[in-house]
């Protein structure tokens, strides 16, 4: 009751100034700015089935949130937007729960490994560089591949040559490995090893880069596992909830860097945006959706790459030593 009273007081005070002091990040930021950022990224999240972390984490750095807090809090915010998005997909039955479970069991192991690597790199003092390099490399490769692929798909659709033999292309690996499982919703009968490995890999990256990993998961599902585009977004969101939820707990207990106040503001905007985004996404064609996402991925990649290539105006940076 007392906490509620404090909360109400805070909200009333906020409507006056709109500046909010974040208790863990220890900086003061504009609340509307955070709500707006959350909403914008939430729309993208719902549209593309990505957590939006690959956009939000660099944006949070940009407005002055300490990187460690941005990465951890972003994981928490992605839980909210992906849960909201996944519920909408569950109702439309566009989630492959069995595939999702295999992916997330790999993802949880990957997240634990990733956080270990992250903390090690932090102690060496090169975590910023490696995080940025990861961004540039992965966003660059995936963005270009998706862009070319979607462009070809649109071209094929225009020339009315429907290509149906796509599922045959990757027959090799996913069909020859043992531990075959039937994934009814996806209409697949493949080995469980590739999705499990994809889960681990994305889990590692999501913990290091402070993202949900949807931007890698979605193309991996389409191109490596051969899942139908219809269930890809829902299944991706479903497994992101668990992997980022686990990452949040790990960050909160080892680094104390999850900022609840920041997360609440981001997720209020985020969950609303995700709902709007899901609506927009269901009205657009898959190829258009993918080409839009690839352009976005390439833009973020380009921005980060130029930051590494152009001489920064301030050569020095300040960091903390140990604890």
């Amino acid at each position, binding site marked *: 009751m007392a*906490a509620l009273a404090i*909360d109400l007081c805070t909200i009333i005070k906020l409507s006056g100034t709109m500046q909010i*002091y974040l*208790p863990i990040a220890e900086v*003061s930021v504009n609340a509307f700015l955070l709500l707006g950022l959350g909403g914008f990224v939430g729309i993208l999240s719902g549209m593309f089935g990505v957590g939006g972390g690959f956009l939000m984490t660099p944006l949070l750095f940009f407005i002055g949130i300490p990187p460690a807090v941005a990465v951890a809090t972003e994981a928490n*915010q992605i839980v909210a937007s992906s849960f909201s*998005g996944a519920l909408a997909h569950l109702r439309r039955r566009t989630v492959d729960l069995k595939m999702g479970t295999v992916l997330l069991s790999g993802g949880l192991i990957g997240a634990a490994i990733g956080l270990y690597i992250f903390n090690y790199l932090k102690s060496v003092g090169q975590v910023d*560089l490696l995080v940025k390099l990861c961004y540039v490399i992965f966003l660059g490769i995936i963005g270009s591949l998706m862009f070319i692929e979607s462009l070809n798909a649109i071209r094929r659709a225009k020339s009315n040559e429907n290509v149906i033999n796509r599922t045959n292309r990757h027959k090799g690996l996913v069909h020859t490995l043992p531990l075959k499982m039937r994934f009814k919703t996806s209409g697949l009968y493949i080995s469980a090893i590739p999705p499990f490995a994809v889960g681990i890999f994305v889990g590692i990256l999501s913990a290091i880069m402070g993202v949900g990993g949807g931007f890698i998961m979605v193309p991996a599902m389409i191109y490596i596992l051969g899942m139908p585009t219809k269930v890809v977004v829902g299944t991706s969101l479903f497994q992101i909830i668990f992997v980022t939820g686990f990452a949040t707990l790990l960050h*909160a207990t080892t680094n104390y860097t999850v900022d609840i106040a920041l997360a609440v503001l981001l*997720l209020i905007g985020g969950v609303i945006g995700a709902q709007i985004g899901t609506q927009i996404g269901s009205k657009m064609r898959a190829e258009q959706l993918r080409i839009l996402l690839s352009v976005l991925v390439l833009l973020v990649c380009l921005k980060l790459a130029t930051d590494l290539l152009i001489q920064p105006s301030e050569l020095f940076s300040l960091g903390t030593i140990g604890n």
Partner: protein
Amino acid sequence: MRILAFIVMLLMFSKNLVANEQIVLGLSQDEVAITANFDGSKILLFGAIQRDAPQPDGKMGVIITIAGPSKPIAVRKKEKRFGIWVNNQTVEVDAAPSFYAVATSAPFTEIVSDVEDLRNKISVERAIRSVGAPMHIQDSQSFTEAVIRIRKDQKLYQLLENEIVVDQSTLFRTSVDMPANLTEGDYFTRIFLTRDGKIVSQFDTIIDVKKVGLERFLFNLSRENPLIYGLLSLAIAIIAGWVASSFFRYIRHT
């Protein structure tokens, strides 16, 4: 001979007087409460100089410093390697205050001598302690300069020359703007009274900067019960996601 005796007498007299000058200080607040909507704080400092005898000769100066908690920091310099800019050299600064403001009643060098500055660590440059950089680093000076430059840009280090107003050589007042990105802790505040560059009186006090209310509660919870804090963040996220989903579904169905 008579003149010499007069000078000696005057010197003794003035020395005696100098010791009798004392600072009496008031603060608009001795506590800065960081609330949810904390957006920086303006602290008003005012005081008086108490004298037992007429004012001695010599240029008078008042200097006020406010220093936040000191922490060691790692200063990293970027260099171009394989075509990209990466952190290369690192210098550890042993103690640098998280906040440091120096307010003076006249240009800094005019009212305090270099010796006094060195002894009392008054200027920003002296307040930062660096025991020495590794041998292979060429200009370790540029690293400490970088700390000052970066923190000055963030308004965390301030040199407020001529910002102290002195009325009739007895009353003084100034205000210091503390930015929103303050860290918690005791802010050690010193007031110096100088005559011809020499410190004749000093007054110390502490301004307590701390989080209160919800800010305090959340910060403590995150440190003392990190698992509960983490679960709480997750619960909020799940509930918010569910509420938004149900709410939008309700709108669509009506």
